[in-house]
């Protein structure tokens, strides 16, 4: 077993802790690549059988989650190989991001029950435990099958089946030309096949890939933009949420002239949160540019925190711009309206007739921050439901789709470059198997059935 495998070891669902397990010769190497201690120093070596506290970071040193990491050196581990376990928040998004990272470092996704199987094959588990092990394999298989079934929703499955069908038809065409040249002729219409594959295979696969790429939820967390008039406390809010000084906070309005973003984690869900330049009428060119970017960013966001200082009366222009933003975006974005500085007890309520704040808080006195976090989670969890995951493939799926797309390129190269059809058949078959793996059923070899159904064969 020269491969390193990984999987999320805990059942999916919110709340509690999630565990990701890595086993194999590269387990430690991968851990060293993705883990840093709280002071941001990467480990040179991870001491086995100790709990390490720190962060998982991606290759751009972007923080993903706060974790506990546990390294067991082989053969004194469950699988008798080097094993690393990472305990993170249990949010499926966090878990998937970490898993994705590990896969990108070269690990392979474990088959159901593969850890247990390795444990057994490596002689880790003694004979009396054999039957219990089998139960575990069976149990895991059924849960992971259930998971697979629920992950591959009807829509995605139907779409993939259609693509597989196209590929299988083309393979049958090629096999017929190879095996029955007397009956069906021995020339392949490459051009027609290229067109067909482009429309019926490439385009839908590309679209699935695009959905995945576009899905900021899975890649970069949910995007939050804090917007509002200058000096309403946006930067302070960001810092309060981050628990650190990131934006330069001064009482001078307009301090934040550019965008400042960071990843935060609220109840296990990653958010990319952006502090923006305050929206106001200004002659300052730098500040104008900042404001333009604020608008751009709001368009890309999943959620806007529209913030104003409730202790100040807003002038007409300020009021108008806030109301304009609210009206313009509420149809298309989640908006949480936040009134800040309630500690000053001088609520003006200038907007109350037109917009009612969802949350009233004081960043300075840390009043209402928890309510805000809760509100944010509620707002995005409405957005997150199954209907979204149904068209967006998960990490495992997208890996296979990417492989299928690579094979597609080879098939097209082959067809255009007059490569032998026996070679194109190999690529087609591999492409079919990649997509079949997503659906979870092995694609059975019905090529002969297809040939006999479509072509009149025989003397």
């Amino acid at each position, binding site marked *: 077993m020269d491969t390193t495998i990984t999987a999320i070891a805990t059942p999916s669902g919110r709340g509690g802790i999630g565990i990701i397990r890595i086993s194999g010769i590269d387990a430690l190497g991968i851990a060293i690549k993705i883990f840093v201690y709280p002071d941001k120093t990467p480990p040179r070596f991870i001491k086995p059988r100790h709990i390490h506290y720190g962060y998982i970071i991606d290759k751009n040193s972007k923080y993903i989650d706060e974790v506990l990491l546990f390294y067991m050196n082989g053969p004194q581990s469950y699988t008798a190989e080097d094993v690393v376990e990472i305990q993170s928040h249990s949010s499926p998004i966090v878990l998937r991001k970490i898993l994705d990272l590990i896969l990108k470092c070269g690990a392979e996704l474990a*088959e*159901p*029950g593969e850890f247990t*199987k390795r444990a*057994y*094959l490596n*002689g880790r588990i003694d*004979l009396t435990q*054999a*039957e219990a*092990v*089998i*139960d575990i*394999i*069976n149990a895991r*298989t059924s849960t992971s099958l259930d998971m697979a079934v629920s992950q591959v929703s009807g829509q995605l499955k139907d779409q993939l089946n259609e693509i597989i069908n196209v590929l299988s038809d083309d393979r049958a065409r090629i*096999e017929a*030309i*190879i*095996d*029955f*040249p*007397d*009956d069906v002729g*021995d*020339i392949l219409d490459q051009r027609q096949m290229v067109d067909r594959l482009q429309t019926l295979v490439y385009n839908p696969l590309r679209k699935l890939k695009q959905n995945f790429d576009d899905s900021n939820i899975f890649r970069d967390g949910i995007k939050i933009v804090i917007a509002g008039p200058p000096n309403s406390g946006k930067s302070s809010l960001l810092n309060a949420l981050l628990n650190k000084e990131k934006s330069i906070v001064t009482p001078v309005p307009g301090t934040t002239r550019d965008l400042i973003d960071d990843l935060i984690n609220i109840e296990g869900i990653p958010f990319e949160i952006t502090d923006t330049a305050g929206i106001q009428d200004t002659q300052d060119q730098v500040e104008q540019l900042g404001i333009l970017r604020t608008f751009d960013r709001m368009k890309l966001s999943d959620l806007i925190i529209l913030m104003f200082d409730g202790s100040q009366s807003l002038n007409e222009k300020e009021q108008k711009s806030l109301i304009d933003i609210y009206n313009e975006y509420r149809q298309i974005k989640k908006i949480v309206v936040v009134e800040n500085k309630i500690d000053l007890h001088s609520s003006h309520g200038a907007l109350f007739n037109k917009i009612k704040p969802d949350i009233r808080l004081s960043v300075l006195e840390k009043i209402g921050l928890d309510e805000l976090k809760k509100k944010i989670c509620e707002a995005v969890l409405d957005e997150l439901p199954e209907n979204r995951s149904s068209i967006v493939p998960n990490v495992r799926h997208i890996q296979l789709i990417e492989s299928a797309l690579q094979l597609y390129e080879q098939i097209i190269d082959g067809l255009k*470059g*007059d*490569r*032998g*059809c*026996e*070679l194109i*058949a*190999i690529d087609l078959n591999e492409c079919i198997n990649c997509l079949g793996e997503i659906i979870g059923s092995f694609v059975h070899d019905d*090529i*002969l059935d297809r040939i*006999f159904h479509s072509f*009149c*064969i*025989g*003397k």
Partner: protein
Amino acid sequence: MGRETMFYYGKMYDVIVVGAGHAGCEAALAAARMGCDVLLMMIDLDKVAAMPCSPSIGGTAKGQLVKEIDALGGEMAKISDMSAIQYKTLNTRKGPAVHSTRTQNDKNKYHKAMKSVLEKQDRLDLKQTLVEQLIVEDGTVKGVVDFTGFAYQGKKVVLTTGTFLSGLIHIGAMRFQAGRAGEFASYGLAESLKTLGFELGRMKTGTPPRLHRKSIDFSRFIKHSSDENPRPFSFSTKEASRLQLPSYIGHTNKRSRQIVIDNLDRSPLYCGTIKGISARYCPSFEDKAVKFPQRESHHVILEPEGVESEEIYASGLGNSMPLDVQIPFVRSVEGLEEAEIIRPAYAIEYDYVNPLQLRPTLETKRISGLYMAGQINGTSGYEEAGAQGIWAGINAASSVQGRPSFILDRSQAYIGVMVDDLVTRGTVEPYRMFTSRAEYRLVMREDNADLRLREIGYELGLVDEDTVREIRDRKTSIDKEIQRIKTTVIRPMEEINTYLCSRGSNAIQNGVHMDQLLKRVELDYGAVESLAKNPEPVDENISRQVEIEIKYEGYIQRQHVEINKFRNLEKIKIPLDFDYGAVHGLSNEIREKLALIKPMSLGQASRMDGITPSAISVLMVSLKKGSGR
């Protein structure tokens, strides 16, 4: 059979082969050449190695089988060369992996040549008789009894009954018992097998009409001649036969179809008389007419049955109609208006033994020492039969001599693919070899069958010393030449680029290794070699392999990765007496299937129908447990 006394022939044979068709001949020859005393029994010795259907050997995937039989030391390719009247390499527009040889053969010459080889073979006795019964004691076969009640004793018996097992011929509503037109069927043996507990199934095949040459207007057909410079079929034949006879291609038309459709109620295939399953790739004309109604015309290929024969095999006109329909049907074809039918087309039903009852050696699981090969295992085709014949013959002989079983896996030979398919998945329709059944066809080519299998044939004692030495030398030369091509640099000189452009290839900017140029579709070995500073071209049978290995390199490497994965599972053996009932965690359905098929390895188990990946995991764990780690 209730006979009071049985008379025994005094001789004790090592191997008895029942049936001298393409399977039986290869089985008997292999066993005798391995040093066994062999008895070959045949209802009519004038029908040894007959070609009751098409007068040709080989074709796509079948050509590979014949080359493999040849490389192992079998006879089929040599006899084909002796009797060939036309050579064709199919799929030459495609890559070498799917090139397949096909010969048209003089049937009579084929039969005579094979019979002569059998007669001259040491340790081989030929007997003309009809076998009616198997002698079995304590689950082990001991010999056979013929229709006169005379018994022959043998340690192993190989059954190659072809279409003779309860054969029943149909021509329209007319039915009669026959193994082939004009030959006895074998009903007693079928009963004997049923009594022993074998599960028999029924299949159907058929053959087109034979027409008189002089009654055909060949001007209405397109002539198809042999390849110009044919390669012989056998690796040991020096030169392909010069005698060349053409075939002729024509077409059926709307009227042909209409005649058949109008009389469909008189076809035993369509009025329910025929129960046997027929092959989809070899349809009766009734099937073509019904299943592809939109097609107005189908190929008719007229193939000579032999040099001295005036009979013409009318491929594509196979049917099971009564003669009063067959005649107008045949005559509806342009050029056949005056055709005289010498032998009518007919359909035949016969019994086969579900091959799931066989081990990968082709020995039955039920009766020790009893082997089966050819159509009795549910296959069709001379080549499929011959390949199983040599396989069963080798295994029967090996077993007598206490040698290990002879099994080629799916990455070694088409024969291995076929046998694995049969014993692992069974078959409901007559099984024919296709290249698409072979997962690793890039590495299992016709052109390298000798490189793949000669050494194995030599170890078995079927290939001589000189031949195997030549193979070893050739392998070394090929490796050396590949190394040379990969390390020789071609520099971007003007005359070289001029030459490349003249061959429609791009000029080179920097020095490149010769293999990089050889990978280009438009350049072959000769072209690339001519660019070397000091060309040292090698022999064609070496350069051809070098060219294929380099041109296919990427894909071949990918196949080798797959093959390694495949072999890892094959390596995990399952003992024959493995108790699936004691395996915790398998469903009852899967348990029963495994107990029935008794796969030899985890790999074979994984290819069975309805086996899940988790069942394989469970088995793997249980096997480790059993191994007493």
